[in-house]
Structures are given as structure tokens and as C-alpha cells.
């Protein structure tokens, strides 16, 4: 294995250990999505009708947590404690820090998704064709991109206690207002309009389309929106990164 890959693997392993030793990280990432999905799709009366629909949007919820907390809170904390500065003086390959965080985020997200998929398949009676499962998994994992950018912006700009607060607001706000918990159709019109400015809403719509949920959708519009939002957030992340270095 090359040095770069070895460092990346070691750094990813360390990052996962750090994450999993923190209750503040485990609860919003590995407990809340599965717990909420069980509540909404299995426990509540009439829920089995919604199980398939909710699977699509809760998958986005499951990826949102690891991305926002794994980047926002941890980057802010590590930057404030000087850990980022130490990273710049060791002979680690460029990008291994962010690369490892991304790998760790995707791994935790994959576990959170596996929990939800298992609940959906075994307890909520969701039946999807195998290609649909894989397509849904792909959409869910790719949805990490804009959320990671949001996390990076928080992590590079905010002091660490502010980052914790803001990450929570972003996490809960994007979930509730983006229609990840309750379908957007039941929202009042003003909130529906507001949702259309949130990446979580567009990602959920794409996931719903892929899972074959009924209803009329403007997938091209959703894709265009999410592409633009991701580009803007990505630019913001680069600016935030350059800003903290100088």
C-alpha cells in the first residue's frame, strides 16, 4: 500500500474512533434516524402505508447527521485546539485530513442507512426491487456532498461552541423544514416555498422519485437546484478553508 493510502486509512480509523467515542456524535447519527424512522414508519398507526415513502427521506436524514456533525463540530473543535495547525507541520499527504473525515462520514452514514434499510425491509414491510435499493443507496450517499460543504463552512468559520449550536440548528432545521420527517405536502404554502430553498428538500424529492413513490415531481428542477446549491456551498467551503489558513 502506498504511503498516501496508508496514512488515509490510519487517519480514517482514528477519526472513526474519535467519533464513536462521543455520545454527542452517536445520538444524532446512529440513534436518531433509526429511532425516528421506527416511530414514524413502524409504530404509529397507519404507518406502514408511509414506510416506503419515509424510507427515501429518512435516508437523507441519516446522511445529514454524520456530515454536519462530523465536519461542522469536529473541524471547529480541532481547529480551535490547534490540531489543524499540527496537521500542517507533519509530513501527512495533502488532503488526508479532509479525505479521512469524508471516509469516516460516509462509513458512519452507511451504518445509519443500513439500520434504516433493515427496519424498512424487516419490520415496516417495504418491498423494493434490488436495483431500486442500490439506486436509493447511491442517492443517499451522494447527498452527503452538499451537507459536507455545510459542515466545512461551519467548522472553518465558527468557534467550537458556536459550531455545536449551529450544527444542531442546521441538522434539525434542514430535516424538519426540508420535509425529511413529514411530507412537504402537508405543510402550509409558505413553508413549502421555504423548503424549496433547502438542499434537503430537493435531495428527498430525488430519493422519492428513485424509490418510485407516487406523485408528480420536477426531477430536472430538483437536480438543477441541488447542483447549484452544491456549487455555491462548495465555493463557500473553499473560501472558509482559505480564510482560516491565513
Amino acid at each position, binding site marked *: 500500500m502506498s*504511503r498516501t493510502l*496508508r*496514512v488515509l486509512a*490510519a*487517519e480514517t480509523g*482514528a477519526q472513526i*474512533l*474519535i*467519533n464513536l*467515542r*462521543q455520545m454527542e456524535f452517536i445520538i444524532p447519527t446512529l440513534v436518531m434516524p433509526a429511532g425516528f424512522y421506527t416511530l414514524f414508519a413502524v409504530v404509529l398507526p397507519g404507518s406502514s402505508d408511509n414506510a416506503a415513502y419515509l424510507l427515501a427521506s429518512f435516508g437523507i436524514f441519516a446522511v445529514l447527521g454524520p456530515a454536519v456533525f462530523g465536519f461542522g463540530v469536529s473541524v471547529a473543535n*480541532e481547529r480551535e*485546539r*490547534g*490540531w489543524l*495547525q*499540527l496537521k*500542517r*507541520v*507533519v*509530513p*501527512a499527504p495533502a488532503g488526508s485530513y479532509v479525505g479521512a473525515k469524508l471516509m469516516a462520514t460516509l462509513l458512519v452514514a452507511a451504518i445509519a442507512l443500513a439500520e434504516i434499510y433493515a427496519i424498512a425491509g424487516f419490520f415496516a414491510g417495504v418491498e423494493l426491487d434490488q436495483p431500486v435499493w442500490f439506486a436509493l443507496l447511491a442517492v443517499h450517499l451522494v447527498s452527503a456532498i452538499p451537507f459536507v460543504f455545510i459542515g466545512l463552512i461551519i467548522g472553518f468559520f465558527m468557534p467550537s461552541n458556536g459550531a455545536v449550536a449551529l450544527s444542531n440548528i442546521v441538522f434539525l432545521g434542514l430535516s424538519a423544514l426540508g420535509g425529511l420527517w413529514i411530507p412537504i405536502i402537508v405543510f402550509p404554502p409558505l413553508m413549502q416555498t421555504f423548503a424549496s430553498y433547502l438542499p434537503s428538500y430537493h435531495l428527498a424529492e430525488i430519493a422519492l422519485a428513485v424509490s418510485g413513490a407516487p406523485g408528480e415531481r420536477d426531477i430536472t428542477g430538483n437536480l438543477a437546484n441541488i447542483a447549484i446549491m452544491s456549487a455555491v456551498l462548495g465555493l463557500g467551503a473553499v473560501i472558509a478553508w482559505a480564510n482560516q489558513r491565513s
Partner: protein
Amino acid sequence: MPNTSVIETRALTKTYGAKTALDGIDLSIAPGGVIAVLGRNGAGKTTLIHTLLGLVRPKSGQARVFARRPGHSLNRQRTGVMLQDADLPDGLTVREHAALYAEYFDDALDFKTLAGLCELEGFQDRLYRVLSGGQKRRTQFAMAVIGQPDLLFLDEPTTGLDPEARRALWRVIRTLSERGTTIVLTTHYLEEADRLADRIIVLDDGRIAADAPAEDIRDTVGGAVIRCATALDEASLSALPDVEWARLSGRVAELLTRNTTATLRALLEQDPALSDLTVSRPSLEDIFLGLTERAEPVENGDAA
């Protein structure tokens, strides 16, 4: 031109807004030895270290480390660093931190050797979060030396440590120095420089106020600070035997002497009415005053 220096700077300057952190630093450090960079807070010690690491870009002037630009990846492979205020993540044990660091370097020490060298035994499998201040510092130190560096930067390595932990760290620094590592450490403890350094560089207001072998500085520094209320003026105070410098504010005089007894005898003779007399060991502040005044003789005569 072949260059055997580990560190070479010329007219190095760095400003932060209106504040000048480094003001024309010329430095040449040969391989081997412990170099202590002394100075009070804000003297430019940390900025100098950060510039040599490539963390900070100088405003003007030149810096070369291993004849390359600071921060070059080949330099990082040969350099160990312990930064002031730079903490390791809480959620890993000492051994896990070492395992990660070991991946960064071509020739890392195995954990057993590292633990022995840096005295990590007893807390090596504890999470960083629960370590005492001294144990955390030792862990940070271990991360600085795990790559068997040729050059080691220690920015205030013993600040906040109790005397025993400080002495433990000094032992390791000496061991590494004996093995040929070039060690640059900043400190504001005179005693630390005294115990460890082969060469002392005193920074004051971003400038080099003194740069000499440790013994030389120690010789000039020995003695005591005398404080008293006196009727004498500054000129006659400075003229007392063995006085390095003297200053007067109101009736209160302060002077640094190389020979306490001789100076005191003369002082009491000239002003039998003096009061509030104290004699103390010179603080770093006192020494700086002497060093900077010698470097830049006071020319203005206004003693108001």
C-alpha cells in the same frame, strides 16, 4: 553555495497589522545543540517558530530550513514539532495517537521505545481526555519525537508543568540532544534556558537582543536586583560599583548588580537615609532590560 546550517534567516520580518512581530531577524543555526529562544510574551518567539515551520509567511526577508523553504514536505519529514496551545484530539489513547503519527514518518520509533524515551508508561492506554496536564504535554512531546527528527521545535514545552514534570521533560530533551538532534526551544523560564541551552537567543520586540553561548549570558546575568527608595539620582546610581544598569522612577530606584555586597556597601555609604530596601534574584524582565539597554545605549538625556 554549500550551506551546512540547519536554519538560516536573513532580515526576516513579519507584521500583524500595525504590530511588528519580527523585525529583521538574522540567524544561523548549525546542526546539533540546544538553542533556547528567550523572550517575554509578545517578543516574537512563537512567530519565529511558526515562520520556520512555514505556518506563517514572512513579510520580507529570507528563511531557509535544511536549505529549503520552510514547510517543504522534505523538511516536515525531518522535523518534530510541539506547538504551544496545540492540543491532540481527546478521543484517542496515547498509543493510538502514536500509531497514527507513526504512519506519517519514514522512520518512526516503535511504541515501546517511544514510551520508554518519553516516559509514557502507566498512561499509554488511557484516552487523551483523561490525562493530567503533564501527561498531555509528554504525549505531545512524544508525537514531536516519534519520527526521529534531525530538528526539533519545542514552543514553550514546559509551560504549566509542575517542577517534577518539567525536570522529566528536561531529561528527555538532554537525551535527544546527546543523540545529535538540533533542538530549538522557546521559553520564558530563565532556569530552563540555563539548564538546557548551549546557546541562548534573546528576542525583544521582534529583534535579537542577545545571541551568545549560554555561559556568556549566564555570566552577565548573575547577581541581583536591588530596589530601594533613595535620594540619589540615576547617574550616581549607575556609577556605583558593579552596576549593570540602574533606573529611577520618582524616588524608587532599581538596579541590577553583578556583585550584591559591593554595590550595597557603596549604596548605603552614599545614601545612609535610604529605605524600603529589597534584594532579589533578577527576573527575566530585569535581564532583558540590561541586554536591550546594552544593545541600544540610551542616548536621550531626559530623565523626567
